[in-house]
């Protein structure tokens, strides 16, 4: 066995062992990186685009979360005056003669709808996979940039435009769309159906159609980059799990978002051109409409054919990030790498054949439901494999409990808690009681809302030095973690009980239901917990922006002593990522504590007699 190396002089190794792709020879000046506008705004550099996605995601997360606080106040304190919110919400707070302000019910629905739309699409799709796919795919596979930097830029700007239109819809006089984030017809198909169904819905459709374009441009780029631009030696089986996760996520997006686009086209035809794909036997104010022959179930099929893969589009990147962070900070190779990859693939595949479990109670044939129950429950298998492997990865590891690691562990916790309730909801028989209750709300918030956020936070804390050359404050990070972990459980755990008692979701008020009276105190508790968690997230935002300028500076390239390629790039990011050669890869991404070496980066050649670990 040759001399054991524990610290590596990256530049020397890359110069000797790296691959010379002649990048710097035929690269005549930096045409599109010069000047402020081309560098920071219409940038084609994947690292800048990643930061753009992240910042926009944070913006939307604050808005979406603030909305949830407003409707939580309504749910927790329906009797209290909300007149103090009048300066913010204007006419949506109706103040009576006694000075008591109440939230307009139609705006409550708009808030719930926007909260869902914003969080699912803008924050957890664009903000999560947009950020980290962009940042990590080229850096971790050893590419200079994406396959098409131009399409990559367009991807962000389509997202931005979608955001502008959605944001605008919040301020129109009839309010934003209010028929639920799933936009089921007839509320979405008939402009006269409700206040938000008019201009609000039109803007919603335009915005989300642009968003679909953004996801497709991004996804096509990610898949192409992963398959075509990997550096020498970077075989598929040597890719970090982050890349596997982003890769499968992108495939899911490419295959499922077009189906949503189809649904949207049909919806636009129904709204504007008078077709009846989704409409039949509708009466508005006693008047029968001449729209016959359609069925809203058809829309639900098209929507959920996207909608279910969408939840994996949200959770897979978080899984990838958690796998990476757990392994790095436990100083151990990821347990069962191949099983992890195969379970990502299995989850990706299964996600396409379970969509109707969102529709058990919509009138689909119960015999067909059986198939969907079986496939849904089978997803528990690859999910359990992953959970087992995460736990085994940190078991006996030399764990560094920093903010990134805490959030990765928190992710596993949330994924278990939320996943277990999925087994209840996946059963069509139990779903008769549970559907459309707070049990569902609790389930999906924990498993894809909070868990995905935890994955995202883990990623932000972990790769922050790569993005900004500085560290975020650990103290604030830990307060953020514990506050969020405890707070999130405090919000969503009680919701399970409320849901089991049959309290329906999306209701404005429960005043007229005697059966739900005893949940008044519990609802107050949830609202307080939600407000506290919201404030704690502001701490994260503060930490994030404060650290960009004032954080502790990164002094070495590889502060976490990780093995992946992104840590071999200079501290000061440059266009093309590596100043000289791109690294050649000689091993998988998880050589921690191998043969008495603390960690061995992927670009280190094998020493004599050394064997690959998997």
């Amino acid at each position, binding site marked *: 066995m040759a001399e054991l190396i524990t610290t590596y002089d990256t530049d020397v190794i890359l110069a000797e062992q790296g691959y010379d792709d002649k990048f710097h020879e035929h690269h005549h000046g930096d045409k599109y990186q010069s000047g402020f506008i081309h560098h920071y705004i219409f940038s084609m550099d994947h690292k800048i685009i990643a930061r753009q996605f992240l910042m926009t995601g944070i913006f939307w997360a604050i808005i979406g979360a603030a909305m949830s606080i407003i409707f939580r106040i309504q749910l927790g304190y329906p009797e209290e005056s909300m007149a103090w919110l009048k300066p913010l919400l204007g006419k949506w707070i109706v103040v009576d003669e006694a000075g008591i302000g109440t939230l307009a019910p139609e705006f409550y629905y708009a808030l719930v709808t926007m909260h869902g739309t914003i969080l699912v699409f803008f924050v957890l799709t664009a903000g999560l996979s947009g950020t980290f796919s962009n940042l990590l795919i080229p850096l971790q596979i050893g590419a200079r940039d994406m396959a*098409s930097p131009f399409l990559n830029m367009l991807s962000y700007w389509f997202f931005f435009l979608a955001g502008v239109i959605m944001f605008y819809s919040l301020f129109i006089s009839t309010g934003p769309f209010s028929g639920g984030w799933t936009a089921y017809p007839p509320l979405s198909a008939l402009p006269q159906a409700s206040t938000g169904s008019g201009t609000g819905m039109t803007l919603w459709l335009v915005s989300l159609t642009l968003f679909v374009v953004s996801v497709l441009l991004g996804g096509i780029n990610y898949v192409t980059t992963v398959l*075509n631009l990997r550096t020498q030696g970077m075989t598929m089986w040597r890719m970090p799990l982050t890349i596997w996760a982003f890769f499968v996520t992108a495939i899911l997006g*490419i*295959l499922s978002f077009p189906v949503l686009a189809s*649904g949207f086209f049909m919806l636009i035809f129904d709204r504007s051109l008078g*077709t*009846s*794909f989704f409409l039949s036997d509708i009466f508005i104010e006693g008047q029968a409409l001449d729209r016959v022959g359609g*069925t809203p179930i058809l829309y639900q099929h098209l929507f959920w054919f996207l909608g279910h893969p969408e939840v994996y589009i949200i959770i897979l990147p978080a899984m990838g990030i958690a796998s990476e962070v757990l392994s790095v900070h436990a100083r151990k190779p990821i347990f069962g790498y191949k099983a992890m990859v195969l379970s990502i693939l299995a989850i990706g595949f299964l996600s396409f054949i379970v969509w109707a479990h969102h529709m058990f109670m919509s009138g689909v044939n119960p015999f067909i439901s059986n198939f969907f129950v079986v496939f849904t429950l089978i997803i528990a298998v690859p999910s359990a494999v992953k959970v087992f492997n995460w736990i085994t990865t940190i078991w006996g590891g030399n764990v560094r409990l920093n903010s990134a690691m805490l959030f990765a562990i928190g992710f596993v916790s949330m994924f278990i808690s939320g996943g277990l309730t999925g087994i209840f909801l996946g059963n069509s028989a139990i779903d008769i009681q549970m559907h459309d209750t707070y049990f569902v709300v609790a389930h999906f918030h924990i498993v894809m809302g909070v868990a995905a956020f935890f994955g995202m936070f883990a990623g932000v804390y972990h790769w922050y030095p790569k993005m900004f050359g500085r560290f975020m404050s650990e103290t604030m990070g830990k307060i953020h973690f514990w506050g969020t972990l405890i707070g999130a459980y405090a919000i969503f755990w009680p919701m399970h009980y409320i849901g089991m008692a049959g309290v329906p979701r999306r209701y404005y008020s429960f005043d007229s239901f005697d059966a739900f009276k005893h949940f008044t105190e519990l609802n107050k508790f949830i609202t307080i917990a939600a407000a506290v968690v919201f404030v704690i997230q502001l701490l994260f935002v503060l930490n994030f922006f404060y650290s960009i300028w004032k954080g502790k500076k990164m002094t070495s390239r590889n502060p976490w002593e990780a093995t992946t390629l992104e840590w071999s790039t200079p501290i000061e990011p440059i266009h093309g990522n590596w100043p000289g050669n791109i690294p050649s890869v000689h091993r998988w991404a998880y050589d921690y504590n191998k043969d008495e070496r603390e960690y061995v980066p992927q670009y280190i050649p094998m020493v004599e007699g050394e064997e690959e670990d998997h």
Partner: protein
Amino acid sequence: MSDLSINPSYRSKIHPKKFALYTSFASITMMFAAFTSAYIVKQAGGNWLEFAIPTQFYISTAAILMSSVVLHLSLKGFKQGNQNRHKYGMIAGTILGIVFIAMQCSGWMTLVDNGIYLKGNASGSFFYLITLVHALHIIGGIAALFVALYHTFTLKFEATPQRILRYELTVHYWHFVDVLWIYLLMFLIFIK
């Protein structure tokens, strides 16, 4: 600008941009798969009006098949340095593409004359929807062909790798929307 995406030479089996284009075919296919699946589901629900597909749609099919052939020859001509074949093939292909759209429009008008309206029975609505969204994809292809024509008539005739790639991307997209139309027409003929 595109220097970045040049493949490391040791693994360049296919240019990344071409691969990206093929990936986008998967997306477009899924979109039409969704339309045709919705069609089948809706049809199974009953209340489905059968009608004859106007002749124009068969003429348009012939036009687009021919356009694919001439564009293929034009691409070949470009690669072989045969300027005339390249130029006239491209012009013919573009004209045939426009003929396709014109025939589709004429077909829609015949349908309207026959009393098949967008707003009527779902079978008609689906027919218009599917052919219209497909026509939009053809128009996208025609736009790309116009860019190619512009290049042919303004730039010196020179088959650089960059320009071959560009023209290949255009022509391959065209073949794809052609095949897509054949699938849609077969579907509309046999499942009605």
